[in-house]
């Protein structure tokens, strides 16, 4: 069975491209446009093997989502932060994420991060 990834990203093009690429690598990718949609997905489908999280999103941003997620799911699901901000590493630390990747990035770098942190 394919490993599942929850992709929380408001930019439709970025979300589309990442999904396309990860699907070709054999992942099941679920897209959510913000934290609200992501929580909604988790509620319906349970936790994935990894969460890819953008930080700045309308509706519910990455910080709020991480807070809610930690509160609702006492899980080991790793979170990878994706951000175009200069202080992406700090943002990842803020929410206790497992790893981070700065936008823009090469797919290989993203895959390396995913493979390093994904649940087995």
């Amino acid at each position, binding site marked *: 069975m394919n490993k599942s990834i929850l992709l929380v990203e408001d930019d439709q093009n970025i979300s*589309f491209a990442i999904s396309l690429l990860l699907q070709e690598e054999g992942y099941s990718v679920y897209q959510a446009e913000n934290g609200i949609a992501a929580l909604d997905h988790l509620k319906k489908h349970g936790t994935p093997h990894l969460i890819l999280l953008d930080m700045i999103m309308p509706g519910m941003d990455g910080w709020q989502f991480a807070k809610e997620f930690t509160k609702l799911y006492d899980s080991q699901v790793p979170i990878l932060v994706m951000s175009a901000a200069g202080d992406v590493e700090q943002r990842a630390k803020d929410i206790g994420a497992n790893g981070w990747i700065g936008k823009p990035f090469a797919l290989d770098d993203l895959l390396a991060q995913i493979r390093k942190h994904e649940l087995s």
Partner: protein
Amino acid sequence: MNRLSAEDSLWNGQTLRALINGTTDAIYVKDLCGRYTLFNAVASQVTGRAVQDVLGKDDTFLFSADEAKAVMEADRRVMTEGVTKTFEETITTAHGEVRHYLSTKGPLFSEKGEMIGLFGITRDITERKWMEASLKKVNERLVMAQESARAGVWDWDILTGKVEWSPQMYELFGLDPRKVSPTFSAWKAALHPDDAAQADLRIEEALKNKQMLSSEYRVVFSSGQIRWIYATGHGYYDDKGLPIRMLGICQDITQKKIAEEKLRENEALLTNIIDSTPSSIFAFDCNHRFVLINQAMADFYEMPKDQVLGKTLHDVFPREVADRLYAANQKIIENGESLLIEEDVPNKRMGIVRTMMTVKFPLKDARGKVIGLGGVATDITERKRLESKLLEAKEVAEAASRSRATFLDIAAHELRTPVTAISLLLQAVRRRIEKGHAVDISVLTRLYEPVDRLARLVVDLLDISRLERGLIDLQWSPTDVVALASNCFSEFQLQAPLRQMSFKGPSEAVRVELDPVRINQVLSNLLDNAIRYTPGDTPIELYLEQRPDSVRFSVVDHGPGIPREQLGSLFQAFSRGKSEATIRSSGLGLGLSVCRGIVELHGGTIGVSSEVGQGSTFYFDLPIRRASV
């Protein structure tokens, strides 16, 4: 013969005897050998010898050896020269008292003309001698006093008009005693023309009021030199109280006058300096009474100087202010140390508070004893204001520098997002091609959006930079804003055909002087934001309202709304604040600050009202008539 015998009877008779014994002078006659042949009662009294005892004896019987020798020597001279002479003799009386006598001695001749002896009349002049000696001393002292005081004495006999001047008077008035005789008019003629009448009047008044004359006037020497004279005088009056004489002295007080004038000048100079300074200057005595305040202080408190001098703090200030100042001043008087204070001083009358920097210091006499305190208060309100303004400006500059850094962070973030989309889309396309999969055209079509966004961002960044530097020139033209809004709206309808959008505006054309390209840019930006940042299923409305002097464009969305604390900095490119929350909402920022710049160049205003959960309304107003520049 009858007359002669009558004369004889007079000389030999009772009368002569009575004369000799009745006089207060000692009278005596001696023969050629110096033996007394006549010795009157007074002589007997002075010598303390009975007449009978003396007759037939010479002076050695009466006096000590030295005195007798002197007397006999005088007698010898009279008889040798055969003329009457007057001598001063000193004789010790029977009571042992040394007294002075004036003796007139002359030869006595017989009827045949032979010298038969001498007569003597001796008068006691001891009192007179003493008086003379005293007078001499008094006179010496007077001269001494006059000379040392450079004083001249004048004596005016009012009845005769005669005036007497001591020699110094001539010197004082620059007059030559050989040419000028002392008269009242000579005195008056020597005076300075401006002072003559006044000096005259002073004398008149002193006599009239029976007061001491005290008068100052100038004297003009023939050389033109001017001297100051101080005259004092005393009047003498007859039984009826009419003035008969005036006696006085004159003194040269030129040096004193010069010194006084110098002092006055110095004082005037000091007062001038003290009154010209904008700082308040004051001084108190040890009883906390004002002894000096300058003009600046009088002006500050709007109190005339003479109403303050001599008053205490409590007379001048409200109680609480006076209490506070009194305590501070008392400390300085007690400790003798200076104090520098900065305090806010209320001006009761002006109703304003000024910040004063005051230095207070003890005033000491020559021996170092504190005799009061002085102070200088400088109004530093303006300086304080400038200081705080400067500080404010510094803070603004620092904030600007901080927000510029924040701006660059935001700009970089904004640029990275479309770049990431393009990069990932291209990577996806490449993978598919590498694996021999077909590439759907829709994947490539997706590239347009981030590329457009990137292009717009670059334009926005350039516009912001040019607005900041004032490099944007508007191309003004009268424009129908109804058509402008309608066209812009239609374009967005084409771009987002699924979005529920509406436009409401005036049915008739409304012409406004504006730059149509720039205003279209503003309106597009607001519509673009509304579409981009609100959920796709919420409607968007565009309104155009005509107002008396302006038109208002409003873009209304029904999205999540914007928190109140972020509204303020929404339109400011460089001061978005440090708050993480504001940065999170980026994407709205750059375009809005461009919009604000353009609207303000048109003389208009831009604003937003928003309620979280209800949506936002972005609007801008433009004046219908272009403001004259």
